[in-house]
C-alpha cells in the first residue's frame, strides 16, 4: 500500500518510523487508564482503540496536527470513556465482565433511587426558572466546583460568582420547598 503524505511528500508505509505511533498509543493508554472507572477496566484496550480512531480522524482533518497536544488527548480519552459508559448503561446485556454500576449513585434501593430521580427533576425544573447567570453559577456549585473554579470557568470574578450563586440557590431552595421538598 502506498499513500501520499498529504503535503506533497510521497512515502510508503515501510518508511514509517514506529515511534510516534507507539507514543500515541502510550499516551492514550495512560489517559484512558486515568479516566476509566474501575468497573470498566476490562474494556480499557477497546476504549484506547476507539480513542485512537478519533485521534486518527482528527489528524486527517487537521491542517496543523502538531498543534494537537496532550490536552486534546485527555479530551478524547474522556469522550471515549463516556461513550463506553453510556453504551454499558443502554445495553447491560452486552456486559460480559463486571456488571455495570452507576458510579455516583449513593443508593442501590429502587425506592431511594426513584426519590432521587424525582428530586433531580425538581432541581432541573428549578434551575430552568433561574436567569442564566444564576443558573450557571448554581449548576457549577451542584457539580462540585469551588468559587475559584467557577470563576475561572465562567470568566467572572469570584465575587460575582458568589453573588449569583447565593441568589440562585435561594431561589432554588424556595422552588423546592414549594414542590414539597425540604432543602
Amino acid at each position: 500500500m502506498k499513500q501520499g503524505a498529504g503535503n506533497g511528500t510521497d512515502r510508503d508505509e515501510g518508511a514509517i518510523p514506529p515511534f510516534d505511533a507507539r507514543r500515541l498509543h502510550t499516551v492514550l493508554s495512560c489517559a484512558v487508564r486515568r479516566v476509566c472507572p474501575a468497573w470498566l477496566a476490562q474494556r480499557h484496550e477497546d476504549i484506547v482503540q476507539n480513542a485512537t480512531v478519533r485521534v486518527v480522524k482528527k489528524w486527517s482533518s487537521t491542517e496543523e496536527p502538531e498543534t494537537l497536544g496532550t490536552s486534546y488527548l485527555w479530551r478524547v480519552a474522556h469522550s471515549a470513556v463516556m461513550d463506553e459508559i453510556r453504551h454499558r448503561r443502554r445495553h447491560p446485556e452486552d456486559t460480559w465482565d463486571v456488571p455495570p454500576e452507576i458510579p455516583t449513585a449513593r443508593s442501590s434501593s429502587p425506592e431511594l433511587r426513584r426519590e432521587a430521580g424525582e428530586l433531580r427533576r425538581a432541581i432541573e425544573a428549578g434551575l430552568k426558572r433561574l436567569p442564566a447567570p444564576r443558573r450557571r453559577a448554581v449548576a457549577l456549585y451542584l457539580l462540585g466546583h469551588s468559587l475559584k473554579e467557577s470563576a475561572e470557568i465562567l470568566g467572572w470574578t469570584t465575587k460575582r460568582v458568589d453573588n449569583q450563586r447565593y441568589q440562585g440557590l435561594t431561589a432554588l431552595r424556595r422552588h423546592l420547598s414549594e414542590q414539597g421538598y425540604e432543602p
Partner: protein
Amino acid sequence: MSESRKGDEHLRDAFGAPLETTARSPECPEDERIWSAAQGEADAAITGSVLDHVAGCSACAESWRMARAIGEDAGIANVRKVPLHRRPLVWTVAAVAAGIFLVALLLPSSLDRRGVDPLDVFRAAESVALESRIDESVAVPRDRAILSWKGAPDGSVYTVEVATADLEILIRSESQVETEFRIPTEALGGIPDHGKVYWRVEALLPDSSRVSSSVFVLELQ
C-alpha cells in the same frame, strides 16, 4: 456566602446521580465540548450554553462531573501543551501511519500480516497477556523504581515506556531481554514525592508478533 452549605449535600447528590433512564438526546453537546467547557478552555458563549444544557440533562451532567474529576486529578488546567510530534515531518509520516491504521481497522482482512505492518503496534496476540508484577498499592523509593512484568514466552524482546501523569514520556527503553527495568533516578527528577508514573511494556515475541500490555501505575515515595 460560605463555600458550601451542609444541607446542600443532598442537593448535590441528587443532582449528581445519573438517572437510570438517562439517555443522550440530539440536543446534547458533544463530550469534547463539555470537556472544553469544564476545563475552562471554551469561550464564554459556549461555556454558557453547555452549562445551560448540563443544568437540565443528567447524562451531560455526568460527563461534566467526570471531566471535572479528571481535570482535578491530573491538574489539566496546568497541563503543558506538549505537542505529540518531535518534528513536523514525523507527524506527516505518523498521519500516514494513522490513515493506514484506520483503514486497517475497518478492513482488517485487507492487511498483509506478513509484511511490516504498523498495526502490529496496536494488535495484541490472543494468547499472550503481559502482566505487571508490581503491587500498585505500594509506593517505592525513587532509587528503587523497578518495573517488572511477566506473561511473554522466553526469547521475547521488550520495549518499556514510562510516562508522567500529564502524558509526557519520561523514558523509553528498547531491546530489553530482561523482564525488569530500573527507571533511572534522573528520569524521575521532575516527579514530586508521592507522584505517580505510568508505564507499559511491548513485547516482540519469538514468532515476530507484538503484544502490548495495559498501562500500569507506579507510585513513588
